Protein backbone atom coordinates (compact mmCIF):
# COMPACT_ATOMS: atom_id res chain seq x y z
CA UNK A 1 0.00 0.00 0.00
CA UNK A 2 2.63 2.51 1.08
CA UNK A 3 5.01 1.68 -1.78
CA UNK A 4 2.18 2.05 -4.30
CA UNK A 5 1.27 5.38 -2.77
CA UNK A 6 4.84 6.63 -3.13
CA UNK A 7 4.82 6.05 -6.86
CA UNK A 8 1.83 8.28 -7.45
CA UNK A 9 2.22 12.01 -8.05
CA UNK A 10 1.80 13.87 -4.80
CA UNK A 11 -1.45 15.62 -5.73
CA UNK A 12 -3.23 12.31 -6.18
CA UNK A 13 -1.62 10.57 -3.27
CA UNK A 14 -4.05 9.15 -0.83
CA UNK A 15 -3.22 8.27 2.72
CA UNK A 16 -3.23 4.69 3.91
CA UNK A 17 -6.91 3.71 4.27
CA UNK A 18 -6.10 1.10 6.93
CA UNK A 19 -4.42 3.83 8.94
CA UNK A 20 -7.51 6.03 8.77
CA UNK A 21 -9.75 3.18 9.96
CA UNK A 22 -7.44 2.32 12.85
CA UNK A 23 -7.07 5.93 13.97
CA UNK A 24 -10.81 6.47 13.78
CA UNK A 25 -11.47 3.32 15.82
CA UNK A 26 -8.79 4.10 18.39
CA UNK A 27 -10.08 7.59 19.12
CA UNK A 28 -13.73 6.56 19.10
CA UNK A 29 -13.03 3.92 21.76
CA UNK A 30 -10.91 6.37 23.75
CA UNK A 31 -13.56 9.07 23.50
CA UNK A 32 -16.34 6.72 24.67
CA UNK A 33 -14.33 5.46 27.62
CA UNK A 34 -13.54 9.04 28.63
CA UNK A 35 -17.21 10.03 28.39
CA UNK A 36 -18.09 8.85 31.89
CA UNK A 37 -21.85 9.40 31.59
CA UNK A 38 -21.81 6.86 28.81
CA UNK A 39 -19.12 4.43 29.89
CA UNK A 40 -20.30 4.16 33.49
CA UNK A 41 -23.94 3.59 32.57
CA UNK A 42 -23.23 1.24 29.64
CA UNK A 43 -21.09 -0.96 31.87
CA UNK A 44 -22.85 -0.13 35.15
CA UNK A 45 -26.39 -1.17 34.26
CA UNK A 46 -25.73 -4.79 33.28
CA UNK A 47 -23.29 -5.13 36.20
CA UNK A 48 -25.82 -3.72 38.65
CA UNK A 49 -28.63 -6.00 37.42
CA UNK A 50 -26.37 -9.01 37.41
CA UNK A 51 -25.20 -8.34 40.96
CA UNK A 52 -28.78 -7.87 42.11
CA UNK A 53 -30.53 -10.78 40.41
CA UNK A 54 -27.64 -13.17 39.87
CA UNK A 55 -25.42 -12.67 42.88
CA UNK A 56 -27.42 -11.19 45.78
CA UNK A 57 -30.83 -12.74 45.16
CA UNK A 58 -31.44 -16.26 43.89
CA UNK A 59 -28.19 -17.62 45.34
CA UNK A 60 -27.56 -21.28 44.57
CA UNK A 61 -30.68 -21.55 42.42
CA UNK A 62 -30.26 -23.74 39.35
CA UNK A 63 -32.07 -23.43 36.02
CA UNK A 64 -31.81 -26.99 34.75
CA UNK A 65 -28.95 -29.21 33.56
CA UNK A 66 -27.46 -28.33 36.96
CA UNK A 67 -26.49 -24.86 35.74
CA UNK A 68 -26.50 -22.15 38.38
CA UNK A 69 -28.77 -19.15 37.75
CA UNK A 70 -25.69 -16.97 38.28
CA UNK A 71 -24.08 -18.67 35.30
CA UNK A 72 -27.23 -18.61 33.20
CA UNK A 73 -27.74 -14.88 33.77
CA UNK A 74 -24.16 -14.26 32.66
CA UNK A 75 -25.45 -14.94 29.15
CA UNK A 76 -28.58 -12.79 29.47
CA UNK A 77 -26.86 -9.78 30.97
CA UNK A 78 -23.99 -9.94 28.49
CA UNK A 79 -26.58 -9.62 25.72
CA UNK A 80 -28.30 -6.85 27.67
CA UNK A 81 -24.95 -5.02 27.98
CA UNK A 82 -24.10 -5.37 24.29
CA UNK A 83 -27.51 -4.05 23.29
CA UNK A 84 -27.22 -1.08 25.64
CA UNK A 85 -23.73 -0.17 24.42
CA UNK A 86 -24.91 -0.20 20.80
CA UNK A 87 -28.25 1.51 21.27
CA UNK A 88 -26.92 4.33 23.43
CA UNK A 89 -23.45 4.59 21.90
CA UNK A 90 -24.55 4.39 18.27
CA UNK A 91 -28.28 5.11 18.22
CA UNK A 92 -27.96 8.19 20.42
CA UNK A 93 -24.32 9.03 19.61
CA UNK A 94 -24.72 9.10 15.82
CA UNK A 95 -28.04 10.95 16.12
CA UNK A 96 -26.25 13.66 18.11
CA UNK A 97 -23.36 13.78 15.62
CA UNK A 98 -25.94 14.26 12.88
CA UNK A 99 -27.89 17.00 14.57
CA UNK A 100 -24.76 18.88 15.60
CA UNK A 101 -23.40 18.89 12.04
CA UNK A 102 -20.33 16.90 13.08
CA UNK A 103 -21.23 14.02 10.76
CA UNK A 104 -21.50 16.50 7.87
CA UNK A 105 -18.06 17.87 8.59
CA UNK A 106 -16.69 14.33 8.64
CA UNK A 107 -18.43 13.50 5.37
CA UNK A 108 -17.11 16.65 3.71
CA UNK A 109 -13.59 15.47 4.60
CA UNK A 110 -11.79 12.75 2.62
CA UNK A 111 -12.56 10.23 5.37
CA UNK A 112 -14.34 7.16 3.97
CA UNK A 113 -17.85 7.09 5.51
CA UNK A 114 -17.25 3.44 6.33
CA UNK A 115 -14.39 4.45 8.65
CA UNK A 116 -16.85 6.40 10.76
CA UNK A 117 -19.34 3.52 10.82
CA UNK A 118 -16.64 0.97 11.69
CA UNK A 119 -15.34 3.11 14.51
CA UNK A 120 -18.82 3.18 16.05
CA UNK A 121 -19.23 -0.60 15.66
CA UNK A 122 -15.75 -1.21 17.07
CA UNK A 123 -16.67 0.90 20.07
CA UNK A 124 -19.76 -1.27 20.65
CA UNK A 125 -17.61 -4.41 20.37
CA UNK A 126 -15.08 -3.12 22.89
CA UNK A 127 -17.81 -2.25 25.40
CA UNK A 128 -19.42 -5.69 24.90
CA UNK A 129 -16.12 -7.36 25.67
CA UNK A 130 -15.54 -5.25 28.76
CA UNK A 131 -19.03 -6.12 30.01
CA UNK A 132 -18.60 -9.88 29.43
CA UNK A 133 -15.27 -9.82 31.23
CA UNK A 134 -16.55 -7.83 34.21
CA UNK A 135 -19.66 -10.01 34.58
CA UNK A 136 -17.65 -13.22 34.30
CA UNK A 137 -15.14 -12.01 36.90
CA UNK A 138 -17.96 -11.09 39.28
CA UNK A 139 -19.73 -14.40 38.70
CA UNK A 140 -16.60 -16.43 39.41
CA UNK A 141 -15.60 -14.34 42.43
CA UNK A 142 -18.98 -13.98 44.14
CA UNK A 143 -21.45 -16.38 42.52
CA UNK A 144 -19.60 -19.75 42.61
CA UNK A 145 -19.79 -19.79 38.83
CA UNK A 146 -17.55 -22.35 37.15
CA UNK A 147 -16.73 -21.53 33.59
CA UNK A 148 -14.43 -23.46 31.28
CA UNK A 149 -12.07 -21.43 29.14
CA UNK A 150 -13.97 -22.66 26.11
CA UNK A 151 -17.28 -21.45 27.55
CA UNK A 152 -15.81 -18.03 28.26
CA UNK A 153 -14.38 -17.71 24.75
CA UNK A 154 -17.78 -18.74 23.35
CA UNK A 155 -19.77 -16.11 25.20
CA UNK A 156 -17.13 -13.43 24.54
CA UNK A 157 -17.19 -14.36 20.84
CA UNK A 158 -20.98 -14.25 20.80
CA UNK A 159 -20.94 -10.83 22.46
CA UNK A 160 -18.60 -9.58 19.74
CA UNK A 161 -20.67 -11.10 16.94
CA UNK A 162 -23.89 -9.86 18.54
CA UNK A 163 -22.58 -6.31 18.50
CA UNK A 164 -22.99 -6.25 14.72
CA UNK A 165 -26.80 -6.66 14.55
CA UNK A 166 -27.15 -4.34 17.54
CA UNK A 167 -24.92 -1.74 15.88
CA UNK A 168 -27.04 -1.92 12.74
CA UNK A 169 -30.12 -1.38 14.92
CA UNK A 170 -28.39 1.64 16.49
CA UNK A 171 -27.55 3.06 13.06
CA UNK A 172 -31.10 2.59 11.80
CA UNK A 173 -32.40 4.38 14.89
CA UNK A 174 -29.92 7.23 14.42
CA UNK A 175 -31.19 7.88 10.90
CA UNK A 176 -34.90 7.35 11.58
CA UNK A 177 -35.51 9.08 14.90
CA UNK A 178 -35.40 12.86 15.35
CA UNK A 179 -32.20 13.54 17.30
CA UNK A 180 -33.87 15.25 20.24
CA UNK A 181 -36.05 12.17 20.77
CA UNK A 182 -33.18 9.69 20.43
CA UNK A 183 -32.57 9.24 24.16
CA UNK A 184 -36.20 8.53 24.95
CA UNK A 185 -36.75 6.18 22.03
CA UNK A 186 -33.53 4.35 22.88
CA UNK A 187 -34.96 3.48 26.30
CA UNK A 188 -38.25 2.48 24.71
CA UNK A 189 -36.42 -0.01 22.52
CA UNK A 190 -33.81 -1.11 25.03
CA UNK A 191 -35.90 -2.06 28.03
CA UNK A 192 -38.92 -3.75 26.37
CA UNK A 193 -36.69 -5.64 23.94
CA UNK A 194 -34.57 -6.95 26.79
CA UNK A 195 -37.58 -8.03 28.80
CA UNK A 196 -39.43 -9.63 25.86
CA UNK A 197 -36.33 -11.60 24.87
CA UNK A 198 -36.12 -13.17 28.30
CA UNK A 199 -32.90 -11.44 29.34
CA UNK A 200 -34.23 -10.55 32.78
CA UNK A 201 -36.79 -13.25 33.48
CA UNK A 202 -36.40 -16.61 31.71
CA UNK A 203 -38.91 -16.85 28.86
CA UNK A 204 -40.66 -19.91 30.26
CA UNK A 205 -42.01 -17.73 33.08
CA UNK A 206 -43.58 -15.31 30.57
CA UNK A 207 -47.07 -15.69 29.04
CA UNK A 208 -47.31 -17.85 25.92
CA UNK A 209 -48.07 -14.98 23.53
CA UNK A 210 -44.95 -13.13 24.65
CA UNK A 211 -42.93 -16.31 24.13
CA UNK A 212 -44.24 -16.41 20.59
CA UNK A 213 -43.06 -12.93 19.66
CA UNK A 214 -39.59 -13.32 21.23
CA UNK A 215 -38.02 -14.73 18.02
CA UNK A 216 -38.62 -11.35 16.37
CA UNK A 217 -35.82 -9.90 18.47
CA UNK A 218 -32.08 -10.38 17.85
CA UNK A 219 -31.54 -10.37 21.61
CA UNK A 220 -33.59 -13.57 21.92
CA UNK A 221 -31.45 -15.40 19.35
CA UNK A 222 -28.18 -14.21 20.81
CA UNK A 223 -29.26 -15.08 24.35
CA UNK A 224 -30.30 -18.63 23.30
CA UNK A 225 -26.87 -19.12 21.70
CA UNK A 226 -25.26 -17.88 24.92
CA UNK A 227 -27.34 -20.25 27.08
CA UNK A 228 -26.51 -23.17 24.82
CA UNK A 229 -22.79 -22.46 24.99
CA UNK A 230 -22.98 -22.21 28.79
CA UNK A 231 -24.58 -25.67 28.93
CA UNK A 232 -27.90 -24.26 30.15
CA UNK A 233 -31.28 -25.22 28.66
CA UNK A 234 -32.01 -23.26 25.50
CA UNK A 235 -34.66 -23.10 22.81
CA UNK A 236 -34.31 -23.50 19.07
CA UNK A 237 -31.31 -24.62 17.06
CA UNK A 238 -28.07 -22.86 16.28
CA UNK A 239 -29.10 -22.60 12.65
CA UNK A 240 -32.42 -20.85 13.37
CA UNK A 241 -30.67 -18.39 15.68
CA UNK A 242 -27.96 -17.62 13.15
CA UNK A 243 -30.60 -17.10 10.49
CA UNK A 244 -32.59 -14.92 12.89
CA UNK A 245 -29.55 -12.74 13.64
CA UNK A 246 -28.47 -12.48 10.00
CA UNK A 247 -31.95 -11.50 8.79
CA UNK A 248 -32.26 -8.87 11.51
CA UNK A 249 -28.84 -7.48 10.56
CA UNK A 250 -29.77 -7.37 6.88
CA UNK A 251 -33.10 -5.69 7.66
CA UNK A 252 -31.49 -2.99 9.82
CA UNK A 253 -28.62 -2.41 7.38
CA UNK A 254 -31.20 -2.01 4.61
CA UNK A 255 -33.27 0.44 6.64
CA UNK A 256 -30.12 2.41 7.49
CA UNK A 257 -29.08 2.55 3.85
CA UNK A 258 -32.48 3.76 2.66
CA UNK A 259 -32.79 6.33 5.48
CA UNK A 260 -29.23 7.56 4.86
CA UNK A 261 -29.92 7.97 1.13
CA UNK A 262 -33.14 9.80 1.84
CA UNK A 263 -31.45 12.13 4.33
CA UNK A 264 -28.65 12.75 1.82
CA UNK A 265 -31.05 13.63 -0.97
CA UNK A 266 -32.91 16.00 1.27
CA UNK A 267 -29.83 17.83 2.47
Amino acid at each position, binding site marked *: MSTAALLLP*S*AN*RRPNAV*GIFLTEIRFEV*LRSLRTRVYSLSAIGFPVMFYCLFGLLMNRDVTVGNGVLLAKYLLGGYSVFGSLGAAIFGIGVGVALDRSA*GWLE*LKRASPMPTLAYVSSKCAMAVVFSLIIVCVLTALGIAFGHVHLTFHEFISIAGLAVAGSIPFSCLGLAMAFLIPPNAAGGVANLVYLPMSFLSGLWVPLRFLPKFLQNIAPAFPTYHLAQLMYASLGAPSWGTVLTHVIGLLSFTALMAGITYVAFRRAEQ*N*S
Partner: protein
Amino acid sequence: MHEILEASEVVPQPSQPAKDAVATLTNITKRYANGVVALDGLSLSLHPGEIVALLGPNGAGKSTAVKLMMGLSSPTSGTARIFGLDPRNTAARLRTGVMLQIGRAPEMLRVREHLMIFRGYYANPMPYADIIKAAGLEGIEERFFGELSGGQKQRVLFGIALAGDPDLIFLDEPTVGLDIEARRLMWAEIRALAARGKTVLLTTHYLEEADALAHRIIVINNGKVVCEGTPNEVKSRGTSGAAGSTGAVRIIRCVTTLTANHLLAIPSVSHVEVNGNFVTITSEQAEATLREMLALDQSLHSLEVQRPALEDAFLALTSNN
Protein backbone atom coordinates in the same frame (compact mmCIF):
# COMPACT_ATOMS: atom_id res chain seq x y z
CA MET B 1 -32.40 41.88 -13.61
CA HIS B 2 -30.40 38.71 -13.27
CA GLU B 3 -28.85 38.94 -16.72
CA ILE B 4 -28.03 42.61 -16.45
CA LEU B 5 -26.17 42.09 -13.21
CA GLU B 6 -24.35 39.07 -14.45
CA ALA B 7 -22.96 41.03 -17.39
CA SER B 8 -19.23 41.63 -17.34
CA GLU B 9 -19.60 45.37 -16.72
CA VAL B 10 -20.19 44.59 -13.07
CA VAL B 11 -16.83 42.87 -12.79
CA PRO B 12 -14.29 45.19 -14.38
CA GLN B 13 -11.38 42.78 -14.63
CA PRO B 14 -12.44 40.09 -17.09
CA SER B 15 -13.08 36.99 -15.07
CA GLN B 16 -10.73 34.16 -15.85
CA PRO B 17 -11.87 31.50 -18.28
CA ALA B 18 -13.93 28.74 -16.75
CA LYS B 19 -11.18 26.17 -17.13
CA ASP B 20 -9.10 28.10 -14.61
CA ALA B 21 -11.89 28.04 -12.08
CA VAL B 22 -11.22 26.09 -8.91
CA ALA B 23 -14.90 25.53 -8.27
CA THR B 24 -17.99 26.15 -10.35
CA LEU B 25 -21.71 25.89 -9.94
CA THR B 26 -23.38 25.97 -13.34
CA ASN B 27 -27.06 26.70 -13.68
CA ILE B 28 -27.90 24.92 -10.46
CA THR B 29 -31.45 24.28 -9.40
CA LYS B 30 -32.06 22.61 -6.08
CA ARG B 31 -35.55 21.59 -5.14
CA TYR B 32 -36.09 19.83 -1.83
CA ALA B 33 -38.52 16.99 -1.31
CA ASN B 34 -40.96 19.37 0.38
CA GLY B 35 -41.11 21.43 -2.81
CA VAL B 36 -38.98 24.33 -1.58
CA VAL B 37 -36.73 25.67 -4.33
CA ALA B 38 -33.52 26.68 -2.56
CA LEU B 39 -31.51 27.49 -5.67
CA ASP B 40 -32.97 28.65 -8.92
CA GLY B 41 -30.59 28.70 -11.87
CA LEU B 42 -27.59 29.75 -9.81
CA SER B 43 -24.14 29.96 -11.39
CA LEU B 44 -20.91 31.04 -9.78
CA SER B 45 -17.22 30.30 -10.01
CA LEU B 46 -14.22 30.61 -7.72
CA HIS B 47 -10.73 31.35 -9.00
CA PRO B 48 -7.28 30.58 -7.61
CA GLY B 49 -6.04 32.93 -4.91
CA GLU B 50 -9.26 34.82 -4.37
CA ILE B 51 -11.33 35.32 -1.25
CA VAL B 52 -15.01 35.29 -2.11
CA ALA B 53 -17.74 36.19 0.35
CA LEU B 54 -21.16 34.71 -0.21
CA LEU B 55 -23.80 36.98 1.26
CA GLY B 56 -27.53 36.69 1.48
CA PRO B 57 -30.34 36.87 3.99
CA ASN B 58 -31.33 33.74 5.92
CA GLY B 59 -32.98 31.30 3.56
CA ALA B 60 -31.42 32.86 0.46
CA GLY B 61 -29.72 29.61 -0.49
CA LYS B 62 -26.21 30.31 0.80
CA SER B 63 -25.81 27.15 2.79
CA THR B 64 -27.39 25.04 0.06
CA ALA B 65 -24.88 26.45 -2.44
CA VAL B 66 -21.99 25.74 -0.09
CA LYS B 67 -23.23 22.22 0.68
CA LEU B 68 -23.39 21.47 -3.04
CA MET B 69 -19.77 22.51 -3.42
CA MET B 70 -18.80 20.36 -0.44
CA GLY B 71 -20.50 17.37 -2.04
CA LEU B 72 -22.92 17.01 0.88
CA SER B 73 -25.91 17.52 -1.36
CA SER B 74 -26.62 16.95 -5.02
CA PRO B 75 -28.37 19.39 -7.36
CA THR B 76 -31.79 18.75 -8.89
CA SER B 77 -30.31 20.04 -12.15
CA GLY B 78 -27.11 21.75 -13.17
CA THR B 79 -23.52 20.79 -12.37
CA ALA B 80 -21.17 21.36 -9.49
CA ARG B 81 -17.43 20.93 -10.08
CA ILE B 82 -14.44 21.17 -7.77
CA PHE B 83 -11.06 21.05 -9.56
CA GLY B 84 -13.04 19.73 -12.52
CA LEU B 85 -14.33 16.80 -10.46
CA ASP B 86 -17.59 15.86 -8.85
CA PRO B 87 -17.45 17.37 -5.34
CA ARG B 88 -18.18 13.95 -3.85
CA ASN B 89 -15.02 12.55 -5.41
CA THR B 90 -12.34 11.79 -2.82
CA ALA B 91 -9.68 13.37 -5.04
CA ALA B 92 -11.64 16.66 -4.87
CA ARG B 93 -12.08 16.33 -1.11
CA LEU B 94 -8.35 15.75 -0.62
CA ARG B 95 -7.77 19.30 -1.89
CA THR B 96 -10.61 20.90 0.03
CA GLY B 97 -10.86 22.09 3.63
CA VAL B 98 -14.16 22.70 5.33
CA MET B 99 -15.21 24.69 8.36
CA LEU B 100 -18.87 24.31 9.25
CA GLN B 101 -20.91 25.70 12.09
CA ILE B 102 -20.91 22.78 14.47
CA GLY B 103 -23.28 22.49 17.39
CA ARG B 104 -21.13 19.98 19.18
CA ALA B 105 -17.91 18.16 18.31
CA PRO B 106 -16.73 15.11 20.23
CA GLU B 107 -15.98 16.75 23.56
CA MET B 108 -13.77 14.15 25.14
CA LEU B 109 -11.04 14.39 22.54
CA ARG B 110 -8.13 16.75 22.96
CA VAL B 111 -7.41 19.55 20.50
CA ARG B 112 -4.23 17.73 19.47
CA GLU B 113 -6.18 14.51 18.87
CA HIS B 114 -8.83 16.21 16.75
CA LEU B 115 -6.12 17.70 14.54
CA MET B 116 -4.26 14.42 14.38
CA ILE B 117 -7.39 12.58 13.20
CA PHE B 118 -8.08 15.07 10.42
CA ARG B 119 -4.42 15.32 9.36
CA GLY B 120 -4.52 11.56 8.96
CA TYR B 121 -7.08 11.86 6.15
CA TYR B 122 -4.54 13.51 3.84
CA ALA B 123 -1.31 12.22 2.34
CA ASN B 124 0.32 15.67 2.56
CA PRO B 125 -1.22 17.39 5.55
CA MET B 126 -0.17 20.78 6.82
CA PRO B 127 2.61 20.38 9.42
CA TYR B 128 1.09 20.17 12.90
CA ALA B 129 3.04 23.15 14.24
CA ASP B 130 1.86 25.30 11.31
CA ILE B 131 -1.80 24.50 12.05
CA ILE B 132 -1.35 25.39 15.72
CA LYS B 133 0.22 28.70 14.76
CA ALA B 134 -2.22 29.57 11.98
CA ALA B 135 -5.30 28.80 14.07
CA GLY B 136 -3.87 30.35 17.25
CA LEU B 137 -4.09 27.14 19.30
CA GLU B 138 -0.87 27.52 21.29
CA GLY B 139 -1.37 26.49 24.90
CA ILE B 140 -4.69 24.71 24.45
CA GLU B 141 -3.45 21.70 22.50
CA GLU B 142 -3.89 19.30 25.41
CA ARG B 143 -7.32 20.60 26.43
CA PHE B 144 -10.47 18.59 25.78
CA PHE B 145 -12.71 20.13 23.14
CA GLY B 146 -15.57 20.23 25.66
CA GLU B 147 -13.53 22.47 27.98
CA LEU B 148 -12.90 25.18 25.41
CA SER B 149 -14.64 28.54 25.14
CA GLY B 150 -16.79 29.28 22.10
CA GLY B 151 -14.02 31.25 20.43
CA GLN B 152 -11.44 28.53 21.08
CA LYS B 153 -13.76 25.89 19.62
CA GLN B 154 -14.16 28.04 16.54
CA ARG B 155 -10.38 28.23 16.18
CA VAL B 156 -10.04 24.46 16.49
CA LEU B 157 -12.59 24.05 13.68
CA PHE B 158 -10.55 26.50 11.62
CA GLY B 159 -7.48 24.38 12.35
CA ILE B 160 -9.38 21.28 11.20
CA ALA B 161 -10.21 23.04 7.92
CA LEU B 162 -6.50 23.72 7.40
CA ALA B 163 -5.40 20.19 8.34
CA GLY B 164 -5.01 18.94 4.78
CA ASP B 165 -3.22 22.10 3.56
CA PRO B 166 -6.09 22.41 1.08
CA ASP B 167 -6.16 24.50 -2.10
CA LEU B 168 -9.81 25.40 -1.60
CA ILE B 169 -11.24 26.29 1.78
CA PHE B 170 -14.91 26.71 2.68
CA LEU B 171 -15.49 28.78 5.80
CA ASP B 172 -19.04 28.96 7.08
CA GLU B 173 -19.35 31.88 9.52
CA PRO B 174 -15.72 31.47 10.58
CA THR B 175 -15.50 34.26 13.14
CA VAL B 176 -18.74 33.71 15.07
CA GLY B 177 -18.00 33.98 18.78
CA LEU B 178 -14.49 35.38 18.34
CA ASP B 179 -13.34 38.51 20.12
CA ILE B 180 -11.97 41.36 18.05
CA GLU B 181 -8.35 40.34 18.43
CA ALA B 182 -9.01 36.71 17.48
CA ARG B 183 -11.12 37.86 14.54
CA ARG B 184 -8.30 40.06 13.21
CA LEU B 185 -5.90 37.14 13.64
CA MET B 186 -8.16 34.89 11.60
CA TRP B 187 -8.59 37.54 8.94
CA ALA B 188 -4.81 37.86 8.66
CA GLU B 189 -4.56 34.10 8.35
CA ILE B 190 -7.23 33.97 5.65
CA ARG B 191 -5.42 36.71 3.70
CA ALA B 192 -2.18 34.78 4.06
CA LEU B 193 -3.86 31.67 2.63
CA ALA B 194 -5.07 33.62 -0.40
CA ALA B 195 -1.60 35.12 -0.82
CA ARG B 196 -0.26 31.56 -1.11
CA GLY B 197 -2.68 30.95 -3.97
CA LYS B 198 -5.40 29.21 -1.96
CA THR B 199 -9.02 29.95 -2.76
CA VAL B 200 -11.32 30.85 0.11
CA LEU B 201 -15.10 30.93 0.05
CA LEU B 202 -16.68 32.35 3.16
CA THR B 203 -20.20 32.99 4.30
CA THR B 204 -20.66 35.54 7.02
CA HIS B 205 -23.26 37.59 8.81
CA TYR B 206 -20.70 40.30 9.53
CA LEU B 207 -20.81 42.51 6.48
CA GLU B 208 -17.80 44.34 7.85
CA GLU B 209 -15.94 41.07 7.54
CA ALA B 210 -16.90 40.60 3.90
CA ASP B 211 -15.92 44.21 3.24
CA ALA B 212 -12.53 43.88 4.90
CA LEU B 213 -11.63 40.45 3.62
CA ALA B 214 -13.23 39.60 0.31
CA HIS B 215 -11.80 40.31 -3.12
CA ARG B 216 -15.21 39.57 -4.49
CA ILE B 217 -18.68 39.48 -3.00
CA ILE B 218 -21.53 37.41 -4.38
CA VAL B 219 -24.93 38.45 -3.09
CA ILE B 220 -27.64 35.84 -3.45
CA ASN B 221 -31.31 36.09 -2.72
CA ASN B 222 -34.18 33.71 -3.45
CA GLY B 223 -31.71 31.20 -4.86
CA LYS B 224 -30.28 33.54 -7.50
CA VAL B 225 -27.18 35.69 -7.80
CA VAL B 226 -28.40 39.26 -7.34
CA CYS B 227 -25.07 41.03 -7.57
CA GLU B 228 -21.43 40.13 -7.88
CA GLY B 229 -18.32 42.30 -7.74
CA THR B 230 -15.67 43.89 -5.53
CA PRO B 231 -16.96 45.26 -2.20
CA ASN B 232 -16.93 48.79 -3.68
CA GLU B 233 -18.83 47.73 -6.76
CA VAL B 234 -21.46 45.97 -4.69
CA LYS B 235 -21.85 49.03 -2.47
CA SER B 236 -22.46 51.41 -5.35
CA ARG B 237 -24.54 48.87 -7.14
CA GLY B 238 -26.82 48.39 -4.17
CA THR B 239 -27.30 52.05 -3.36
CA SER B 240 -27.56 53.50 -6.85
CA GLY B 241 -30.88 51.85 -7.53
CA ALA B 242 -31.75 50.39 -10.88
CA ALA B 243 -30.03 53.20 -12.78
CA GLY B 244 -26.66 51.53 -12.51
CA SER B 245 -24.92 54.90 -12.54
CA THR B 246 -21.56 55.99 -11.20
CA GLY B 247 -20.06 54.96 -7.90
CA ALA B 248 -20.37 58.40 -6.25
CA VAL B 249 -23.31 57.44 -4.07
CA ARG B 250 -23.27 59.02 -0.59
CA ILE B 251 -25.41 58.62 2.48
CA ILE B 252 -26.49 61.89 4.11
CA ARG B 253 -27.75 61.90 7.69
CA CYS B 254 -29.09 64.99 9.40
CA VAL B 255 -31.92 66.50 11.42
CA THR B 256 -34.14 68.58 9.16
CA THR B 257 -37.66 69.96 9.03
CA LEU B 258 -38.00 68.89 5.39
CA THR B 259 -40.44 66.06 4.84
CA ALA B 260 -39.64 62.88 3.02
CA ASN B 261 -41.70 64.04 0.03
CA HIS B 262 -39.74 67.27 -0.14
CA LEU B 263 -36.48 65.40 -0.06
CA LEU B 264 -37.46 62.89 -2.71
CA ALA B 265 -38.32 65.81 -4.99
CA ILE B 266 -34.70 66.98 -4.92
CA PRO B 267 -32.90 65.67 -8.02
CA SER B 268 -30.43 62.79 -7.54
CA VAL B 269 -32.00 61.69 -4.24
CA SER B 270 -32.82 58.04 -4.69
CA HIS B 271 -33.95 57.00 -1.22
CA VAL B 272 -35.15 58.63 1.99
CA GLU B 273 -35.61 57.00 5.35
CA VAL B 274 -36.86 58.73 8.50
CA ASN B 275 -35.76 57.47 11.92
CA GLY B 276 -37.13 59.69 14.67
CA ASN B 277 -35.56 63.12 14.22
CA PHE B 278 -32.95 61.86 11.81
CA VAL B 279 -33.39 61.36 8.11
CA THR B 280 -31.11 59.20 6.05
CA ILE B 281 -30.89 60.24 2.41
CA THR B 282 -29.22 58.33 -0.39
CA SER B 283 -27.96 60.62 -3.10
CA GLU B 284 -25.93 60.17 -6.24
CA GLN B 285 -24.75 63.78 -6.14
CA ALA B 286 -24.32 64.61 -2.51
CA GLU B 287 -22.93 68.13 -3.07
CA ALA B 288 -25.88 69.30 -5.17
CA THR B 289 -28.38 67.66 -2.82
CA LEU B 290 -26.81 69.31 0.20
CA ARG B 291 -26.74 72.76 -1.38
CA GLU B 292 -30.44 72.51 -2.04
CA MET B 293 -31.27 71.11 1.41
CA LEU B 294 -29.29 73.80 3.19
CA ALA B 295 -31.02 76.47 1.12
CA LEU B 296 -34.47 75.05 1.93
CA ASP B 297 -33.91 74.44 5.65
CA GLN B 298 -31.85 76.98 7.63
CA SER B 299 -32.27 74.93 10.82
CA LEU B 300 -30.70 71.75 9.38
CA HIS B 301 -28.09 70.35 11.82
CA SER B 302 -26.18 67.26 12.97
CA LEU B 303 -25.06 66.69 9.39
CA GLU B 304 -23.05 63.62 8.42
CA VAL B 305 -22.06 62.45 4.97
CA GLN B 306 -20.81 58.88 4.50
CA ARG B 307 -19.82 56.55 1.79
CA PRO B 308 -22.46 53.84 1.63
CA ALA B 309 -21.72 50.91 3.89
CA LEU B 310 -21.95 47.39 2.57
CA GLU B 311 -24.88 46.92 4.87
CA ASP B 312 -26.93 49.56 3.03
CA ALA B 313 -26.14 47.95 -0.29
CA PHE B 314 -26.91 44.54 1.05
CA LEU B 315 -30.29 45.57 2.41
CA ALA B 316 -31.18 47.35 -0.80
CA LEU B 317 -30.15 44.40 -2.95
CA THR B 318 -31.95 41.77 -0.96
CA SER B 319 -35.16 43.60 -0.05
CA ASN B 320 -38.29 43.04 -2.17
CA ASN B 321 -36.23 41.28 -4.79
